[in-house]
């Protein structure tokens, strides 16, 4: 579904991601893990079109998307839930969700989507008219994921959703990913919480200082020395 080859990304001409290749197949949950500053978010920014690649190719559904602007990619079924949620703070929950459904033309589909995310996160329905900025961190994260789902994506990319959440809440939002995946949405997850991310994912990639150091199924990664030593403290 998504194929990245030898991707190089950077800011103001200074590269921070070197020669990264990865692949996401349909219906999978794939995670990119690594410590703070490894370049995980930069990769997602590159994939969703916010950052233009300096080299390499990104292919999505058989089409090269290196130069496709971010808003077009949303129409093509890619959704990116950015780090730090990036909600529209002054807008209500419902308005945030409706902005998520911006690319949908059909009112009936929009309504369906809204019901679907309300079912997944009932908390949001209770507070649909409240401004997003008044929410707690966990609720904001739910809203960010829900907003990402409103465009009916085929591929949902989520950046650091555990950030600032209590462990109980991390489990809760991670569980919702399973549900999202079960309705046929492919998930690409970027996480600092290595163990949790790998537990929920089918496959994973480990990023260190802008380079992929190891990849494999979650069992392989959890058993590998690099992961054990660097991230699990064993």
């Amino acid at each position: 579904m998504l194929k990245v080859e030898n991707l190089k990304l950077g800011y103001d001409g200074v590269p921070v991601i070197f020669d990264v290749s990865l692949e996401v197949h349909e219906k999978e949950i794939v995670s990119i893990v690594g410590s703070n500053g490894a370049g995980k978010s930069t990769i997602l920014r590159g994939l969703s079109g916010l950052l233009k690649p300096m080299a390499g190719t990104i292919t999505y559904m058989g089409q090269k998307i290196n130069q496709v602007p971010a808003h077009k990619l949303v129409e093509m079924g890619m959704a990116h839930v950015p780090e730090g949620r990036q909600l529209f703070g002054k807008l209500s929950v419902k308005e945030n969700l409706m902005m998520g459904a911006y690319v949908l033309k059909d009112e009936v589909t929009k309504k369906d989507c809204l019901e679907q995310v309300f079912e997944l996160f009932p908390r949001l329905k209770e507070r649909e008219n409240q401004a997003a900025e008044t929410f707690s961190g966990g609720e904001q994260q739910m809203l960010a994921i829900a907003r990402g789902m409103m465009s009916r994506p085929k591929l949902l990319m989520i950046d650091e959703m555990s950030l600032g959440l209590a462990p109980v809440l991390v489990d809760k939002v991670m569980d919702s990913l399973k549900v999202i995946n079960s309705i046929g949405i492919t998930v690409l997850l970027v996480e600092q919480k290595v163990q949790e991310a790998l537990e929920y994912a089918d496959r994973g990639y480990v990023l260190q200082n802008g380079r992929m150091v190891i990849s494999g199924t979650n069992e392989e990664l959890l058993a590998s020395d690099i992961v054990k030593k660097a991230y699990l403290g064993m």
Partner: protein
Amino acid sequence: MGQIMINGLMNGFVYALVAVGLTLTWGVMDIVNFAHGEMLLWGMYAAFWIWSLLSIDPILSLPIVILLIFILGVLMYFLVIKRVLNAPPLTALLATFGLSMVLKNLTQFFWTANYRNITNPLVGSDSIQIGELFIRKDYIVAAVGSLLLTFVVIWFVNKTKTGVAIKATSMNKSAAKLMGINTSKIFAITFGLSGACVGAAAALMSSFTPIYPEACALYSTLAFVIVALGGFGNIKGALFAGLLIGLAEAVGGYLIGTSFKYLVVFVIYLVAIQIRPKGLFGW
């Protein structure tokens, strides 16, 4: 005194509409548009020429002028603003300043510095009497028209999909892109909308305001004061601040002399931003 206040309020509504246009581009795009007053100026010339050449009264040509200045706004965005959007802030400031010079001097080049007036407009300058107060009909039309259009803009921004997208883009541009919003298009619409506001104000004022290349300098300065006073990007704030400034100008002029009326306006402004730098209704 009541008479003075009514006159001030009447002006205030028009000031507010001009400021609403400015607050859109300032608040949403973070672009300080120094050419805002010149859009107003071109709107007034548009109303004048439509009246003079086609004999259509400014009240009736209102939609045409709105459309023309909407287009002027969109053009300004694509030809100038878009190119400096990602440059350091000072670049955009200088660009709009240059634009204002060009637009103002073009009017002088094409149509000379002479004063032009629209004579015998459909809505005359005769007054109607309400109790003790006399209010000029053309002022009433301008004030009511401005208020209605301000409400239209408020409705548009809060209730339509494009309007909410404008707000979303102003809060978080990159998140807006991730929603599939074409932010460049939203900016063009915002600039057009800003133009539409001043276009409307221009047509409404043109029947009782002399039209010449410097006609709008004052309106543009007041619009900046009103936007800052009302809170950047806050349309309702601009409406209230506009009325406040209109009142202050009239009452101040009455109490200490007409030549000092703007002294009162700017003192109010200076004091207000010392106490509340984000504006009276700012976030």
